[in-house]
């Protein structure tokens, strides 16, 4: 009641005093006198304020002439307070601001609130809207690349709409999800792949529906001090996304538009038809020679070319050329923001349409956003933010699923596209299931759409005594559809599927905060919050095959139909608190705790508690450093805490359940599905972080050095139980592993004069990962793609593989070592078994060009035995980071970002079929196949061509150095000076050209060293970060764009 009364009164007052108002005018410039546009001028303790327009000018209307204090602020400059006497209010003000390189007072989003950068006791990486705007890829994750030290962002591939993987300070799990938690405006959002899983050898990205253009900042919580506020979901890091908001003042419009081309970073050189046929003859010749040596009396029969073609059908088909293209991108957005003292708003409308280098692959997005904040009374603010997105992704097969994957492998280059009668050519089977890639692309469709409503309502109530209460409710409604059609031209029977996924995710939150000086020099800011989340997912679908007429494309019309549905849900109930103490702006302490209950945790382990403590000491504010001019900041901070990984647990996994479908004799039966584990819970990470931040020469040189250690325990593993129990395994929290690393960031402003500034940033992250405990599971119990494993003492996803000993140079009698039990490959799992080391030497004739291996003793053997596998290599880089230079000169701006990673290996799982192995019936990579053994005396590691020897085996010959340095981004922009703009009615105008992934330096011989094999499961993604199997390359983009404000 009193609130309402006050509201009415204040309205009346405003109306009354309108006539006596005074106007405050002025300009804001930088130190050199250049005008600053967009600076905020607030009259302290009132609601009055304004923004500077072109030439830095502003004007504020005030009801009465009184003494005022103005606060002037703009990003990148130190805020300034200016006192103006009532008598001087009519005089134009000239305010100049100092460049703020250190940004100590800038707000950093930390979850359930913000902190000033200087207050941080934990590690948070921030990417601002200007940096985000430089990304021309369709998703915001790409804006993080090279901008957040210690955060590795992996594009699965360069196809439009493809999935992303983010690893914050190393891989965070073994079998469960290693992805960070994504929180948009306080709402943990639905993430992941809903795209029908493995069917096309690629995954989708539910977050691709978010338009990066709407994002004000991305803050990544990296250590326990920062992430403990997200408790059981903080272990893999937390990505906090804050969308743009309006601010009071005249409505500002902004139009941005760019258009460009996209292409693959690299295209492999493969054999053409003539070359392939010639090598086929060579392989037959080599086989005949080998046979004449080993079995002189045997008769040799040459193997015919695969496919059963007559010579008149032989072609030289460039299948890759037919399935790849130059893609196009168009991206446009219009935003309007502004507001009055009571209401502010930001609205946007965005559209993006891109096609990729893969023929038929497109991604289209339409999105609208309205963020409105309303000051209902002095004490009560309300806000609504709504985001409506629609994406449509036409997907095409790749890798093993066909399309460009088949074009580089099973579609042999001497195959024609069409038969003489104009129908699609298909080679004779059975030998290999090649679907003509051109037919596949022309006749099949696979379309995904995502419509998503992300909405968020809040009320912020100021309470007496420095308390405030914030109530927030959020909805994230995701509606995903999947339509697939496979034509009977491509396979014997046409097949169609329509599938729908609905995810409803609801969050409610109440946060009580307190912010005040409780004692002289001691400030306390604390929160106490409670939050609930409920999310459910329903999948329904219909499959059909065999249609009465090829024109039917919906499964309902099929002769054979198969309907299905799937449902799952989870809930969280959380209690959260954080206490920040600041004593004399020198000593900071932060205590955080979160108790999370979840439906995913076992009945006897319902709540987890995740505390952290962090402390910071600003040495540069101590008297003994105050006098040292050159040191502008010296800060030490350290923290320790616990976080969890609950997103890795599939719903209901702790419950012992029965499943339907065990029918007998016409009666419906049920069967036990899994063992109950009432103790099942989160994976836990204890992280220690020690960091020094330093700024010299007024921040023109800055350095941040962090050391961290993450010990992850209670790792979820399917532990074997004796099969005589009726079960094979039980999911338990048993394993452990660690990540240890160092992050160094050096930033400098070598030149910072009025017209010319040069900023340079170097970030270096070093991480080592080691498995400590894998529950003594045998090596093959937890496998990833491309022979990756989890082995104690080795990094997650190390390759477990046989060692190649090269190729026999000349036909000769050779002493080789063989294993007595070697004929039963994979028999012995226990390495202490005495049979392990039963080897004997034998002398045999080895034909020149034959491949040889090392056994466990390190001795040469001619036998490929899985018992001789050893752990080798690491799929994750040990060093990675970026080197970015930004130069501004007059209106021009130039940004060049180099991204690099070193120390990781790539296992090319397709190379065993593509490097001198024609018997695989795959096309061959030209450069590596040229290194094959051809004549007696040749020294190489690629064996002679053969159609009888089995080269289709995993050896370390196909492990390559995955290090690379890449010109990730190059942008040249020009901002048109204000004088010209006003004539055009514009407030700002910038044109630019941006190139992404322009140049790559690497020794990796495959398509592209930035890789993630097609894996839909969390375990495959954790292990397979360095594995490729015909995986498409990354995309190179070159765009021209324009940004206009008015």
């Amino acid at each position, binding site marked *: 009641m009193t609130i309402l009364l006050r509201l009415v009164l204040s309205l009346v007052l405003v109306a009354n005093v309108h006539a006596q108002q005074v106007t405050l005018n002025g300009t804001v410039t930088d130190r050199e006198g250049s005008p600053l546009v967009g600076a905020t001028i607030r009259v302290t303790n009132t609601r009055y304020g304004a923004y500077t327009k072109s030439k830095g000018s502003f004007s504020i209307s005030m009801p009465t002439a009184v003494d005022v204090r103005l606060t002037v602020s703009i990003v990148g400059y130190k805020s300034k307070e200016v006192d103006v006497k009532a008598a001087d209010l009519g005089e134009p003000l000239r305010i100049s601001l100092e460049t703020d390189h250190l940004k100590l007072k800038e707000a950093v989003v930390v979850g359930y609130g913000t902190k000033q950068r200087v207050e941080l006791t934990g590690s948070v990486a921030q990417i601002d809207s200007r940096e985000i705007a430089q990304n021309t890829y369709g998703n915001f994750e790409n804006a993080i690349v090279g901008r957040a030290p210690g955060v590795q962002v992996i594009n699965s591939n360069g196809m439009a709409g493809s999935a992303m993987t983010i690893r914050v300070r190393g891989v965070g799990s073994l079998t469960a999800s290693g992805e960070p938690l994504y929180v948009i405006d306080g709402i943990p959002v639905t993430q992941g792949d809903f795209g029908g899983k493995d069917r096309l050898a690629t995954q989708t990205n539910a977050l691709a529906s978010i338009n990066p253009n709407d994002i004000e900042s991305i803050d990544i919580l990296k250590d326990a001090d920062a992430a403990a506020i997200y408790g059981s979901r903080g272990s893999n890091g937390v990505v906090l996304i804050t969308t743009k908001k309006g601010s009071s003042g005249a409505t500002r419009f902004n139009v941005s538009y760019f258009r460009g081309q996209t292409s693959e970073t690299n295209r492999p050189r493969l054999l053409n038809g003539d070359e392939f046929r010639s090598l086929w003859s060579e392989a037959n010749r080599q086989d005949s020679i080998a046979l004449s040596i080993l079995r002189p009396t045997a008769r040799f029969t040459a193997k015919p070319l695969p496919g059963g073609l007559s010579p008149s059908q032989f072609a030289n088909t460039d299948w890759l050329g037919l399935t790849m293209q130059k893609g196009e991108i168009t991206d446009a957005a219009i935003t309007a923001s502004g507001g009055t003292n009571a209401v502010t708003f930001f609205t946007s409308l965005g559209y993006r349409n891109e096609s990729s280098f893969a023929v038929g692959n497109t991604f289209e997005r339409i999105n609208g956003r309205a963020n409105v904040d309303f000051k209902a009374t002095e004490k009560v603010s309300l806000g609504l933010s709504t985001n409506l997105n629609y994406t449509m992704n036409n997907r095409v097969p790749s890798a093993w699923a066909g399309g460009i994957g088949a074009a580089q492998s099973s579609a042999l280059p001497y195959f024609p596209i069409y038969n003489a009668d104009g129908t699609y050519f298909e080679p004779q089977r059975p030998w290999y299931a090649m679907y003509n890639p051109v037919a596949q692309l022309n006749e099949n469709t696979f379309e995904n759409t995502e419509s998503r409503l992300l909405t968020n309502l809040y009320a912020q109530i100021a*309470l*007496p*005594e420095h*308390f405030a*209460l914030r*109530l927030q409710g959020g909805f994230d409604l995701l509606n995903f559809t999947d339509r697939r059609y496979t034509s009977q031209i491509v396979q014997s029977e046409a097949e169609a599927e329509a599938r729908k996924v609905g995810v409803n995710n609801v969050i*409610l*939150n*109440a*946060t*009580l905060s307190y912010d005040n000086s409780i004692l002289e020099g001691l400030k306390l800011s604390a929160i*106490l919050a*409670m*939050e*609930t989340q409920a999310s459910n997912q329903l999948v329904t679908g219909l499959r059909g095959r065999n249609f009465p007429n090829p024109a039917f494309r919906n499964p309902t019309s099929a002769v054979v139909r198969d309907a299905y549905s799937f*449902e*799952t849900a989870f*809930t969280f*109930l959380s209690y959260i608190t954080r206490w920040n103490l600041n004593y004399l702006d020198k000593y900071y302490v932060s205590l955080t705790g979160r108790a999370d209950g*979840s*439906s995913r*945790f076992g009945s006897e382990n*319902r709540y987890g508690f995740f505390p952290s403590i962090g402390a910071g000491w600003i040495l540069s504010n101590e008297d003994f450093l105050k006098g040292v001019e050159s040191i502008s900041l010296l800060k030490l901070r350290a923290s320790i805490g616990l976080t969890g990984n609950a997103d890795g647990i599939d*719903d*209901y996994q702790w*419950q*012992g*359940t*029965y*499943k*339907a479908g*065990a*029918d*007998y*004799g*016409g*009666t*419906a*039966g*049920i*069967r*036990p*599905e899994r*063992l109950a*584990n009432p103790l099942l819970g989160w994976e836990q990470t204890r992280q220690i972080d020690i960091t020094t931040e330093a700024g010299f020469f007024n921040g023109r040189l800055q350095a941040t050095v962090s050391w961290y250690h993450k010990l992850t325990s209670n790792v979820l593993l399917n532990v*074997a*139980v*004796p*099969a*005589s*129990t*009726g*079960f*094979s395994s*039980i999911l338990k929290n048993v394993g452990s592993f660690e990540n240890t690393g160092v992050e160094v960031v050096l930033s400098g402003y070598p030149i910072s004069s009025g017209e010319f500034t040069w900023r340079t940033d170097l970030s270096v992250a070093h991480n080592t990962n080691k498995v400590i405990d894998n529950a003594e599971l*045998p090596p093959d119990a937890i496998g990833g793609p491309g022979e990756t494993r989890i082995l104690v003492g080795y990094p997650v996803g190390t390759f477990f593989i046989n060692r190649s000993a090269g190729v026999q140079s000349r036909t000769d009698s050779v002493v080789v070592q063989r294993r007595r039990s070697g*004929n*039963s490959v994979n*028999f012995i*799992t226990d390495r202490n078994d005495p049979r392990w080391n039963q080897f004997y030497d034998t002398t045999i004739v080895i034909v020149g060009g034959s491949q040889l291996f090392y056994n466990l003793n390190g001795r040469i053997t001619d036998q490929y035995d899985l018992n001789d596998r050893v752990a080798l290599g690491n799929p994750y880089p040990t060093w990675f980071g970026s080197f970015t230079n930004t130069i501004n000169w007059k209106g021009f701006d130039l940004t060049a970002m180099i991204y690099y990673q070193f120390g990781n290996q790539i296992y090319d799982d397709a190379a065993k079929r593509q490097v001198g192995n024609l018997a695989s019936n795959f096309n061959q990579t030209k450069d590596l196949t040229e290194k094959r053994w051809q004549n007696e005396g040749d020294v190489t590691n690629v064996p002679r061509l053969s159609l009888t020897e089995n080269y289709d085996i995993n050896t370390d010959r196909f492990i390559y150095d995955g290090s690379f340095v890449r010109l990730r981004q190059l942008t040249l922009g020009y901002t048109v000076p204000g004088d010209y703009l006003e004539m055009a009615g514009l407030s700002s105008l910038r044109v630019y050209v941006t190139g992404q992934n322009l140049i790559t330096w690497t020794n990796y011989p495959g398509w592209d060293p930035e890789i993630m094999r097609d894996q839909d499961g969390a375990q495959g993604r954790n292990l397979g970060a360095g594995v490729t199997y015909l995986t498409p390359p990354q995309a190179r983009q070159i765009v021209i764009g324009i940004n206009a404000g008015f």
Partner: protein
Amino acid sequence: MNTHFLSSLRSGLIMGLAILSIGCDSMLDQTPPLDISNDIALSTPSGIVAALTGAADQFSSGAFYGGNTMSIGELWSNNVESNVGADFGRLQILSYNLNIFNPEGRSMWGDGYGVINRANNVILALDNVSFADPRQKDLLRGRALALRGASLWALCMYFAQPWGFTPDNSHPGVIIRTEPTLGDIGTVKARATLKECYDQIIADLTQAATLLPAKDAPYMGSLAAKAMLARVYFHMGEWAKAEAFCTEVIASGAFKLNPGVADVVASNSTPEAVFEIVNTPVDNAGSIVWDFRQADNSLPRYWAGTDFVNALYTDTTDKRLALYVYRNNRLYVAKWDRIAMNTPIVRLAELYLTRAECRAQQGNAAEAIADVNIVRQRAGVKDLSATLTGNSLLNAVRRERNLELAFEGDIFLERKRQRRNLKLRAWNDAALIFKIPDIEMNANTLCVQNP
């Protein structure tokens, strides 16, 4: 702190908590929509019936009684020649080079113990649920016990050395599980001796026989349980007991020999079938049919071995010749040739032949010959000489048994019982049983491996 502070804190908390009062502990209780929890699954009579059906489903799987418990043994015997192509598991079996990864061994072990665990769940749940009709409870308990006993029997057959391998049968049998697995506590358990296993099998089947009605298709009725008991006692050389059970089943009149030799496989549920696994076109988990089927011009993996062909053709009037097809210089078996056919596990002819040997062993030659002749007359071959005694009688009974029950899994058991070679391997050769598979050994530290 002043009172304002506290009241403000209080009002903030109250407002916040009021709004979040919907968030309470109970929201953390989520039940899986696609599955049902153990407590619910077994809390009602109909739920227990469904769980028992699930046990029978696994019992009928192709890797267990639906196929492999019969066909794997045949592969080792002289009766069968085969071409198993690149079938890794069967190649190991044929080359006597079994390892812990053998897929047939793995799946037989997994399915066998799956049945046992499902049966144990049913048995435990019966104590906790009240039934309107207590006879229903006895029926379900009887079915579960029969499934458990028969499963343990098959596991002993394939994973343990046979009865008599050691004088007191103290050699390792398999693991006895009589409690359902409800968590991962107490899962590690040692193998019992074969004696203990047989005791358990006999106890289960005996109790089942007291609880079940005479016939209970598609499950084992009390007569089927007794027929299984006859098998067990026969294998143990307990002739009198085996004979008594045979007599009980035969004398009950519940089953009759079919008029034709092929009737039992030509149609389902013939009068001769004492226990059949029921298959339907939609629920045909797999069966022995896939090893032998030769209709529709498919080439079977198994065909009759030379020894068997010679034995069979000694009397060309034998109607049982109609069960074989000569093709490509091979004699293929047409016993298992219908898709979704029921799989006869025990049929009456076996009981006559078992009783015949029991009687011969006890010196009752006349009645032994009479039993054999019942089977011979159906096959259209002349009666045994009435003067046969001793070993020549035993040989005649066993020869008849092999001709009658060929390719039904009997030969493997018989050779071991008779302590005769299977091909060139002695009856107690370690290569004639599976290794305990990795899925057991990896997690069961108390389980000893077969040598």
